[in-house]
């Protein structure tokens, strides 16, 4: 006997048995068009829209940073099928790393960001090596455990992290460019800060696209689909997952570093809330692309700021919206947008090629 594995939509989201007409249409025949490098264009558009419509500059910059963080996490969640509950760990510690460099070593933005990314790559290598010894929910629990561990270390290690008070008074970073020197002061000159962040985010995002399009990234998806078969092709599947864990951690570290510079401060925040928040951004935006989670982050932050103005218990609403999203469109906001495009026209164009 042969098992029939048709109970999933092409974007990797499981559908329930007796799928609706819509789902069947999606599953049948050719898969939906894949956005690859086009995602970079989408991101430029999104960043431009954010720049011109979001009145609060700190929120606009935060959207870029959180978006990058969420896109990086989706390497694990969407592409790798590895749900990390502890992605706040490299984000916060990346913030500490950048903050410590700026406070104690140099105000060079490049060095601070490099240290944030490199130290979190190293940390992720260790954490990933342990967590990936298990799969599925056990993997998730291990990532959560490490995040909690990191939280308590940050809390106890006063001399380095400032404990409860956090790292305050992080100096304004300096951007040395050939010919000029810029101060990245998020309060006095938010536009420069926004543009700098946008460039860093775009370049990193492009690297993420390249990773998903590379042979290695393809294997990552193949492992998600069927690890046994990937082994049968000769791949060291753990190695591929570990490299991905390191890449996602590095990106989170970089994002955390940017976030520390934005606020000139790094403080303790409950990890499980932050880790959960970034997961919600991923699921809300959609797991089948890198752009989806970015969009998810922007929408999430928009909801958060809008709702929190009116309701003290805004998280209740975010939670409710999230539940509705998961139940009604598991492919996420971006998945919804893609599948709403006139499919017939698209398939015609493709056939003509």
């Amino acid at each position, binding site marked *: 006997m042969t098992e029939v594995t048709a109970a999933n939509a092409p974007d990797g989201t499981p559908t329930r048995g007796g799928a609706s007409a819509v789902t069947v249409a999606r599953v049948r025949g050719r898969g939906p068009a894949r956005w690859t490098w086009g995602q970079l264009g989408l991101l430029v558009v999104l960043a431009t829209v954010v720049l011109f419509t979001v009145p609060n500059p700190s929120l606009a910059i935060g959207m870029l940073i959180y978006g990058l963080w969420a896109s990086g996490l989706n390497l694990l969640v969407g592409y790798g099928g590895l749900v990390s509950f502890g992605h706040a760990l490299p984000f916060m510690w990346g913030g500490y790393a950048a903050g410590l460099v700026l406070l104690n070593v140099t105000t060079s933005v490049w060095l601070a960001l490099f240290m944030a990314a490199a130290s979190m790559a190293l940390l992720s290598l260790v954490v990933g090596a342990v967590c990936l010894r298990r799969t599925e929910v056990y993997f998730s629990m291990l990532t959560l455990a490490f995040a909690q561990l990191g939280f308590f270390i940050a809390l106890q290690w006063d001399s380095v992290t400032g404990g409860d008070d956090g790292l305050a008074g992080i100096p304004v970073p300096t951007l040395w460019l050939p010919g000029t020197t810029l101060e990245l002061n998020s309060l006095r000159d938010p536009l420069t800060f926004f543009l700098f962040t946008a460039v860093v985010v775009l370049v990193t995002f492009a690297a993420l696209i390249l990773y998903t399009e590379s042979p290695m990234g393809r294997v990552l998806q193949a492992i998600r689909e069927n690890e046994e078969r990937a082994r*049968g*092709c000769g791949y060291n599947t753990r190695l591929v997952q570990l490299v991905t864990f390191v890449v996602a951690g590095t990106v989170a570290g970089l994002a955390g570093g940017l976030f520390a510079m934005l606020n000139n401060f790094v403080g303790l925040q409950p990890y499980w809330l932050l880790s959960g928040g970034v997961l919600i951004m991923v699921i809300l935006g959609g797991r089948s692309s890198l752009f989806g989670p970015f969009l998810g982050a922007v929408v999430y932050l928009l909801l958060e700021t809008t709702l929190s103005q009116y309701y003290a218990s805004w998280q209740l609403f975010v939670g409710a919206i999230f539940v509705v999203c998961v139940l009604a469109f598991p492919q996420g906001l971006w998945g919804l947008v893609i599948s709403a495009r006139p499919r017939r026209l698209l398939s015609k164009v493709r056939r003509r090629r």
Partner: protein
Amino acid sequence: MTDLILRAENLDRSFGGIHAVNDVSLEIPRGTLHAIIGPNGSGKTTLFNLITGHTHPSSGRVEFDGQDITGMAYAKVARKGLAKSYQITTVFPLLTVFENVRIAAQAAAHSYVFWRPADGIKAVTRATEEVLERIGLAADRDVIASNLSHGDQRRLDLAIALATSPRLLLLDEPTAGMSPTETAATVELVRELNRDVTILMIEHKMDVIFDIATTITVLHQGKKLFEGAPAEVKSHPLVQEVYLTGSL
């Protein structure tokens, strides 16, 4: 001395009280098509698993192309040039047919490349297209694997194995669940593949392999019952009895 690609010596494995593979030895000369037949539960798949490293033998050893691979992990064995297709279809369900095969085709030379897009690696694309052409799935290259018919999924399973460019191809009932027409086409395909790769194949439908196999090994309750050329196997009284009555 014949040039052996695979030598399995006295392989043995039990599961609880079941002696799944009982002291089985195999010698497969390069270039041949060796078939393993036997009733349900006679240990055919387990024997495969002992060879590929899925299951460790409690005793015995496996030598592939002159190298001891006993107890070596499956992925490592695969890298050495031994590929297997599955009795229960095992593909990457939500990837396209092309992607399924490309994953296998890139394994040899570009396995862990992350600094350039897979689409740009011409050699891999060409190798993938060749395999699709050969297996007869070229027209379905953009179809999501789980949308293929059962028979086509079986062929895709085989295509993935083939795309790793193995020196020994292990096929576990490649025609399982296929219609007579599909079965005939697959048998023809296997015969054609055998021109440049050694094949070790499990088959349930005896009649389909009599024409193509060089040697047939008959397993029964984990033991090697008989081994010989197809004509000998066909006329052997013990074999007939096993197949007609299902027991000895």
